[in-house]
Structure formats: C-alpha cells, structure tokens
C-alpha cells in the first residue's frame, strides 16, 4: 500500500499458552483517522504494544512511511515519532503542564541544565496550536480528566508525532468534552497527522473514523476497510463473527411487586445529592451513566462503604443505616459485584474455593471455631457448577482463569451467599460474547426468581436488553427515569438527551 504512514504486515505474536496475534495486517493512511476494533482479548492491546515498542512481534513487519522498522523499547517508538495517548493518564502528577508536555525533551544529557525558558515557550506553542488555554505552571494533578487528556495530546505532538495512537480516549469524557476532542482530532487530521483510534463506542467510531480494521481472536476480521457504508450492525458482525443476537425479552411491569430497596433524597460525602431510587423485588433496574457519573460510588455508598450523609435508605420498607459492608451483606442481604473484577471483585492470587466462599467463612465455622475446606466446598460447589465455571480444580488460582470464568466466580460468590438485592456493576466488561449472553440469562433468571437487581452499565445494548426500567445518572445526580421501550435508537436518543440536558443546565 502506498501513502501509508504506518503499516503492519502479517504480524504474529504469541505468549506462553496464547497466540495473541496471527498474521495481522493494518494500513494507516496518511492524514486519516483509522479505527481499531475488536472485543476484549481480540488482540488490540497486543497490536498497540507492538506498535509502541513494548512487545516485539514474533514474525511479520512494521513499516513507517514504507520503511521497515524494529522497536526494541518504547523509547525507540517515541524516537520514530509515534505518540500514544494512553487509557490511564501517563503524566507526572506534581510536574507542571509545561514540563509534562516537554518531558521527553528535557535534555539529552542527564547533567546539562534544563532551559526552562525554552521548555515553556515550546510547550506554550504546542498548546496554542491546539487552541488550548492552560496555565503552564499548574501541576497536572489539579487539572480535570479532559484537560489532562489534552495535555497528553500536546505531549505527543511536542514529539512531532506523525502517528498518534488514541487508546479509548473518550472513556471518561462527558459528551461536551468528547465533542471538543473530536474537533481537535479533525484539526490534527487536516494538518496531516495520522491517528489510530481504539474505542468500544461504535457510534463514535462511525462519526470520526475514515477506515477501520477489526480484530477477532487475534486475526484480521477485516483490514483497513473504508468506514463509509459500514453500519453499526456490520461492525458488530465483524467483531463477534455473527449478527448481534438480542434476546427478545420484554420489559416486565413490576410496579405491583414489593419494594426491596428505596433511596429517598440521599446525599453522600462523595457528592451525591437528592438521590431518589426505587428497586422492586423481581426487577432489573438499569442505572445508566457515563464513566464518572457517580454510579459505582452510589453503589458503594448503598453497601455501607461510604455511608450516606443525608436522606433515608429503606430496605424492605424499613429505614436502615448501613455502616459497613458486613452489615449490608449479613443483615440486609445486599451484594455488590464490582466493575473492577481484578482489583475489587476477586483475590486473584487465591483459589476458586477461597474466592467463592469468602462471604461465608464466618457462618461455616463449626462450634469448635474451625473452618474446613469441605464445609466451604459443600456450600459453594453447586453454584460453581451451576455457572459452568471452567477450571481444572477448585484449588486453581483464580488469576489463571479466563476473564469470563473469573466473572462467573465473582457472581457465584453472591449466589452462594444468597442475597436478596444484587448490585452488578459493568458485569460483562472484558468478557467473551458467550459468557456475556450467559450472564445476561442468569441475571434475568435471578430477577424472575425474586431477586432485586440493580444493573450499572455503560453498555447501551446491554442496558436495553436487560433492564425493565432505566434510571439515568449524571454528575452525581439522578437525571431521569425511563421505561425501557426496547427500541435501541429511541432509547439511546432519550438517554443521551437527558445527559446533554443535564450538562447544559
């Protein structure tokens, strides 16, 4: 291909036990925005790590402007003018905006004094070229998330990057900020910068990208196709290999069912104000919002991690104060499946059995004060089997299981505990389609059996598939309450409308 700023040809990469990439190709045309799509585990991050010099490919080659290159380290990629805007903020919190932008260019000699005059003039020039007005001396730790991202882009440009990798750049941006970011990306594109755009949000990809490469199971599902003419369903089919199958469940009317959990005018130390929420037995209530809207924080305050500072919380119509998680579980029968499976949901270094039985240990202790594996096993194994967790043994370290199986264990824990109210936070992020469908079925069945389920998700199709009712949250407030019509376009429009209106206000 001619005119490609960056090209990958037949790249393969294996890790012990996994073939992450098999013969993958991609051509990023000069001055274009190119989408890289794929499910979690499809090989996107491995490809990005190869392009940024973190990994070396086993076979295949990488070409910059038609010339083959080999990167031994991230520094080589930087030297080749490939800039990356990472998912997690890669800035030095206590350093100033100016110094962060120029960090790579503070000096080639470790002991030659830094010319801060030059550093600041140049940093200023890059900010100006992006039409950004930021205080150069402000420590980046005091910027907003969106501002930090702009600093990262300026930092990449300061290296005169001709290729820019954007890894989920909009994940924590509000719609307004996303609009501003896209304006900036278009401007860069006009100036000839080539960009690789990784995102889960298909709407955004369709809006901003010129071409698309889709990875599935480490292979090209499509290579550098023009975006024009591809619809959402086409992209989904490329990603998962078949059309999206949305179960034709109907939203259930549970307005007559008894209320399991009710929040009245609740406020928290984290910033929630005037939260009203009603969750009934046997329903799935969807809590929709963008990253940072305060949904996870609300869940954690319900289970007593950050106790409410105002208003009342009622469980089964009885006003309660939940002081800690132990009380939430044992007294009020509320469980919470964390969005951060590896950080908060599971103890990765411990076994399947340890993880599944964690909430039960106290209760399974015999009169002599002893707790045996047999006791834990008899209580948890039925649920581990029921969820079809694929593990060589109950003593297997959870960290060695696949993401889908890990998520099943973090759900099995609560089934074994037998809670009445289950809060699930982004339950299917990063897991395969099959397990995802399975977990959807499971949640539906649980609610049908009488469990009250509060579903927190940023995955619009998931919300529309599962929820009986949708509550929209933005900036730590409830913005509105919608019945689920199961009409994707109408629903997503109505939800985004609520968020926009809240932002405008």
């Amino acid at each position, binding site marked *: 291909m001619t005119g490609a700023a960056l090209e990958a040809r037949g790249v393969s990469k294996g890790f012990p036990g996994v073939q992450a990439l098999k013969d993958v190709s991609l051509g990023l045309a000069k001055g274009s925005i190119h989408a890289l799509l794929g499910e979690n585990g499809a090989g996107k991050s491995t490809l990005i790590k190869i392009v940024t010099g973190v990994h070396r490919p086993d076979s295949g080659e990488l070409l910059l402007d038609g010339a083959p290159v080999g990167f031994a380290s991230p520094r080589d990629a930087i030297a080749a003018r490939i800039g990356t805007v990472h998912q997690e903020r890669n800035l030095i919190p206590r350093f100033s905006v100016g110094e962060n932008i120029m960090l790579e260019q503070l000096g080639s000699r470790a002991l030659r004094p830094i010319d801060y005059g030059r550093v600041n003039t140049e940093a200023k020039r890059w900010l100006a070229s992006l039409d950004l007005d930021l205080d150069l001396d402000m420590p980046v730790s005091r910027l907003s998330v969106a501002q930090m991202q702009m600093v990262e882009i300026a930092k990449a440009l300061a290296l005169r990057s001709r290729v820019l990798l954007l890894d989920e750049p909009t994940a924590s941006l509000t719609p307004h900020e996303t609009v501003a970011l896209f304006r900036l990306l278009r401007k860069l594109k006009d100036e000839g910068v080539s960009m690789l755009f990784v995102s889960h949000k298909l709407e955004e990809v369709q809006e901003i990208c010129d071409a698309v490469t889709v990875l599935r199971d480490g292979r090209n599902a499509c290579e550098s196709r023009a975006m024009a003419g591809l619809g959402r369903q086409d992209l989904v089919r490329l990603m998962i290999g078949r059309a999206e199958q949305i179960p034709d469940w109907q939203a259930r009317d549970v307005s007559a069912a008894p209320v399991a959990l009710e929040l009245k005018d609740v406020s928290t130390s984290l910033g929630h104000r005037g939260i009203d929420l009603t969750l009934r037995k046997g329903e799935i209530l969807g809590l929709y919002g963008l990253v940072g809207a305060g949904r996870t924080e609300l869940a954690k305050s319900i289970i007593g991690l950050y106790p409410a500072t105002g208003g009342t919380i009622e469980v089964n119509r009885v006003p309660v104060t939940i002081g800690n998680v132990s009380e939430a579980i044992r007294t009020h029968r509320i469980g919470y499946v964390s969005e951060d499976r590896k950080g908060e949901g599971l103890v*990765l270094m411990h076994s399947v059995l340890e993880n599944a039985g964690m909430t039960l240990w106290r209760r399974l202790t015999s009169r002599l004060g002893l707790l045996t594996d047999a006791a834990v096993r008899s209580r948890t194994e039925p649920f581990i089997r029921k969820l*079809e*967790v694929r593990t060589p*043994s109950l003593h297997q370290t959870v*960290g060695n299981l696949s993401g889908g199986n890990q998520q099943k264990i973090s759900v099995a824990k609560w089934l074994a505990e037998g809670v009445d109210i289950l809060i699930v936070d982004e339950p299917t992020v990063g897991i395969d389609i099959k397990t995802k469908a399975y977990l959807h079925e499971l949640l539906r069945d649980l609610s049908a059996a009488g469990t009250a389920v509060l579903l927190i998700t940023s995955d619009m199709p998931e919300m529309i598939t599962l929820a009986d009712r949708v509550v929209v949250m933005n900036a730590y407030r409830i913005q509105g309450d919608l019945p689920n019509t199961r009409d994707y376009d109408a629903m997503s429009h109505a939800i985004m409308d609520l968020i926009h209106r809240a932002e405008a206000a």
Partner: protein
Amino acid sequence: MPPGARATSLPATDAARPQGRSALVGRSGAPRFYLTNEFGLLVLILGFGAIFGLATPGFLSAFNQFNLGRTAAINAMIGFSMMTVIVTGGLNLAVGAIGVCSAMAMGWLIQGLGLPWPVAILGGVGLGAALGLVNGWMVVRSGLHSFIITLATMSIFFGVMVFLTRAQSFRGLPPVFAEFGRMKLLGWVSPLLLVAVAAALGLILLYRFTALGREMLAAGARPEAATLSGIQVGRVFVLCHMLSGAIAAVTALLVVARTGAAIPSMAGQLGQDWLLPAFLGPVLGGTLLSGGRVSVIGTFLGSVLVTMLANGLLLLKIGEFWVQSCLGLLLLAAVLLDKGRRSFLASRKIAG
C-alpha cells in the same frame, strides 16, 4: 432456558483439568512437593547439615545441637512475629522493640511488684499485644504504610522502655526461667524448640482452619476485594499486628529463659538486631512480602537453615563478623532463587 437446567451438562471441576502439565502439578492444582519451596529448604538443611557434620567435629555434638535448637526456636519465633504482619502486605520494624519492652515489663512485674511469674508472663505478653494494637490502630487509621509507622514506634517504644528502666536489667528473676532455658529433653532437645513448634502448629491452624485466618490472608492479598465481601479489613489488620506483638513478647520471654535475665540490650539498639532474622525466615520460607500468602512451615525451615548456617560458619572459624555478611548474601541469593523458581512455575502457569 434457565441456567440451572444446564447444570449437569458440563462437569466443572477436577475431571476437566487440561492436559500437559500434570507432571508438575499435584491433585489439588498446587505444584508437586518436590517443586515447593519447603522441599528445597529441607534439602538445603540436610545438605548443609551433612557438610558441617563432616567438616567440623563439634557440629553434631549434643551440646551444639541443643544450642542450635534454642537459637533456631528463637529465630523462628522472630520470623513468625514478622510473618503475621507481612500477611497484611505490611511489615513491623518494631518486633524487637516490642519484644524487649515485654520482657522488661515482665521483669518489672516480678522484681518491682513481686507478682508471681505466671501472672508476669501474661502481663508481658499482654503488653506485647497492646503495643501491636497501637501499631495496627495507627496504620489502619492513618492509611500510611506500616513501614514508617513502625519505624517511629520502634523508636518510641524502645526510648520509653530505656527511660523507665534507666537501662537497668532485671537479673533477680525466679529460677524457673533459667531452668526452662537449660532443660534438655531426650538429651539435646530444648523446650524452647517445642514452644516454637507449638506456635507453628497454632499458626497453621489459624491460617488453614479458621475464618479469621482466611480473612487475614484475603484482606492482605486484596483489601478492596475483602472489604466488598464483608470482611472488616481494618479490624483484621489490627488483629494481625496484635498477634505479631504477642508473638514478639513470647519470643523475648524465650530469650529471657536462655540468658536468665531481662536485659534492655537483648535485641540490640532499638531492637534492630531482630530485623534480619525477622525477614530471613519468612522470605526464605516463601512468604510474599506483598501480602496474602504465608508459609508457616517454610518460615520455620528458613529460620532453621539460617541458624544452622550461622552456627556452622562459626564452627568453621569463618569469624563471627563475616557471618553477618554471609547471612546478607544468603538473603540476596534466596530472593533471586525464589524469583527464578516463580518465573519457572509461572511459565507453566502453576501458582508458586
């Protein structure tokens, strides 16, 4: 179709073990015994024992074995004292200071207040636990790493102790202590060793067969996950520090039994002399410094190995000062070896 209806279709457990790694993995999914750290330590102990036994005439004598046993018991207990806090992913630099404070408190209860010795022992151990409580409470409340907190309390505890005792020893203790220290069972086994073995059994029971022990491990491995599962992580951490303090106190009492007196300098300046044995045992034994995994037997064996090496090197007339360098090198070698072993197991996807 409800998920429950498919429950029988897929066996989820032992039968479905993937092929290809069975040679290295036992039935439970843990590595085979000959690949464990404990086995390696056992081999080293026997190997070095044989070398020292052949190279020096005194090593296998009943007298030397008796002494070795006493020192190993004390080192193992010091290791346990540190291990119980390492479980939380933290550390307790104040083990030595707490130990000395407890021993001195016991001495004072006997000599100053004239209390009977069993009561005084309880008082000493109680003080150890209380000082551990202070550490644990401050670590949990401040959210700071236990390194800096226990660095400060090490200094405070020791300073207050010296201030109160005017740096004077308690030498008029009842003869039971010295007799206990001198007692020989079966000709060479010190009862101190039995105390350490009993402590080891107690700790194994705690970590393997009680809810509290498992909570300690879970909270240490991933406090966030433990919290969300209803474990009161703060309380558990405080208990870990109290346990550490109590074990340190018992250890100091063993030292008192060996020397026959409670001496402020029994663990060196600020109790720092205990730090190296405190880490050598657990680190050699395969306890993770980041928390969440312990090996009681490994810590015990590690301490035995260290004590034996020190003893053997002394008998080889290496010069007592160089022994310290050798122990430092041993710690370095141990962490390197363990790193190698872990990456070998990890490359085969076995939990080390």
